[in-house]
């Protein structure tokens, strides 16, 4: 359950500033790495690095690509798998920079890993069969996915179980139907709430609050859209009648989540193209020269993963996976 999960312990942060700081730090870390490895100038300098805003634009662009890929996936991918993949993607780029690991591959690796973890059985060939490329291109993509898989697991700190808000939403609908009889047809809330949750996966909401809170916000939001107030639900059924303080805090939190959703902007395609070019240049220039150490293979070369990392990874997975 979420309340004793690794997601609550390690991957829920206090506010957006914490997240910004982490992303800024990974950006700095990459720059320092390149500087430290003795950069060859070739006409490139500080300005050729991406700044956090540009990284964010690219991140959102590739996130949309990930969600599209999952939406067009054959066989139909369950929502929890999509949510898990998006969460992996988001968590990975909290501690790593897009300049270091290209989001194109990481996005596929996240989806692949999410299928495995959520027990949505898809063979690797079926998986790459969904890519719009030739058979050879698909093979190459699969190779790259398999290379980056261990790196992804390591950067997720082996915390692979992700709690998505979809089941809590179901739980709320059931609870509304059972106990909150003032509302005649809670089913009508489902569609807008679902839509709300899909938009929430594209924000940092999953890293800031518990999935049940996101689901409750979705329900209340869709109710207010339909012109129904559900304050009494909170007070009566959830037992917050007497606990004013918690009630206030909850309402505050839900407002924050709604703001997060409102703030979300579609990435501008011109900007995206510009930053993409920059990104490609960085990958071509810098990523080859950085000594790979034990943080996984560099993007361009196909190197076999170190055996010891593989062995340790799988041992640790058994211990940490189920929490």
């Amino acid at each position, binding site marked *: 359950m*979420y*309340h004793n999960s690794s997601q609550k312990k390690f991957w829920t942060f*206090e506010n957006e500033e914490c997240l910004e700081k982490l992303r800024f730090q990974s950006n700095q870390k990459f720059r320092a790495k390149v500087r430290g490895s003795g950069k060859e100038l070739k006409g490139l300098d500080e300005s050729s690095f991406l700044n956090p805003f540009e990284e964010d634009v690219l991140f959102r662009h590739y996130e949309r690509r990930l969600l599209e890929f999952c939406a067009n996936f054959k066989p139909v991918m369950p929502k929890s798998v999509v949510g898990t993949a998006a969460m992996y993607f988001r968590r990975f780029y909290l501690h790593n920079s897009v300049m270091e690991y290209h989001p194109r591959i990481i996005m596929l690796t996240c989806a692949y890993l999410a299928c495995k973890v959520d027990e949505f059985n898809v063979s690797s060939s079926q998986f790459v069969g969904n890519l719009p490329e030739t058979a050879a291109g698909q093979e190459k993509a699969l190779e790259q996915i398999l290379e980056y898989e261990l790196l992804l697991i390591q950067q997720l700190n082996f915390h692979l179980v992700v709690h998505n808000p979809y089941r*809590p939403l179901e*739980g*709320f609908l059931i609870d509304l139907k059972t106990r909150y009889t003032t509302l005649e047809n809670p089913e009508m809330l489902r569609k807008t709430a679902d839509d709300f949750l899909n938009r929430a996966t594209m924000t940092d909401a999953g890293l800031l609050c*518990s999935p049940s809170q996101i689901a409750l916000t979705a329900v209340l939001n869709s109710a207010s859209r339909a012109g129904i107030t559900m304050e009494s639900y909170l007070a009566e059924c959830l037992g917050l009648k007497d606990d004013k303080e*918690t009630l206030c805090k909850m309402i505050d939190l839900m407002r924050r989540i709604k703001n997060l959703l409102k703030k979300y902007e579609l990435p501008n395609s011109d900007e995206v193209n510009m930053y993409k070019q920059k990104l490609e240049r960085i990958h071509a220039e810098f990523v080859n020269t950085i000594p790979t150490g034990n943080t996984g293979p560099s993007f361009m070369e196909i190197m076999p993963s170190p055996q010891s990392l593989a062995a340790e990874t799988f041992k640790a997975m058994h211990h940490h996976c189920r929490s």
Partner: protein
Amino acid sequence: MVAANMDDQGCPRCKTTKYRNPSLKLMVNVCGHTLCESCVDMLFVRGSGNCVQCDTPLRKSNFRVQLFEDPAVDKEVEIRKKVLKIYNKRDTDFPSLKEYNDYLEQVEDIVFSLTNNIDVENTKRIMEQYQRENRDIIQRNKARLTREQEELEELLLLEQQGSEQRRLETLQEEQRQLLAKKKNKQALLDELESSHLPATLLLAQHKNRAAQLDTQIEMQRQIVKPPVFSTGIPVGQTISLQPVAHLQEALYRYHPLHIETYGPQVPEFEQLGRLGYLNHVRATLPQDVAGGYSSGLACHRAVQDAFSALFLVPH
């Protein structure tokens, strides 16, 4: 070790197996290939010939009865015996453990090469060279070995003699005791015949003597009694029959496990039906029930997830 099936091992030439001929004996030669006794007699009637499988020239006298399932093992055992006759240094001959280990490694390498026919010429040369260099040490160790063996034999002999003696002694003791008893009886009869004392007195005397003899025998047996029981408790130690002291400890109290969910209370699983939750989940099909699934499971899980950490707000 897996027991060899009677049907497995067979002579490669005549294909007779132990199953068909239980008294069949397989013989191994220096090349490592096996032949049954009858084939050996047939092929090596002239005393020497070539191996059937590898064509190496062999002598009949070199055939030994196979002790191991795998003929290669027999071959290696033979080779090892020969090598160790030359390489017979001991751990005391070396100044450090490492050198002794290196020496042992050397020996193993030689045995391995000879067994697997790797570089046989070279290996034989090395052996000869070693033999020449260490001739005196080899001799000394041989002598030592024979001395040790003799010492061992002497010890064994002594032990045997000791046990023999003890056996004889006990036998003699018994004989003596029997004799003494007989004498006593005889003495009684004689006295009854010849003595002037009344019969009852004689009988009493006899009884006394018999009793004395018995105690003597007992005493002799007593000496042999062991001082400890087989469990190690010394004989004669008093085992107190007092009750063991009662250890006072805190009684265990059961506290049901409480996990903080940071949210409203979830209805109990058993109450879901009564409270009406189950009306709003999809009913179970008969196929699902067979596997142990019930709609309450999904319902409970969904509600638990909905309420988990609902009131948790960051500071």
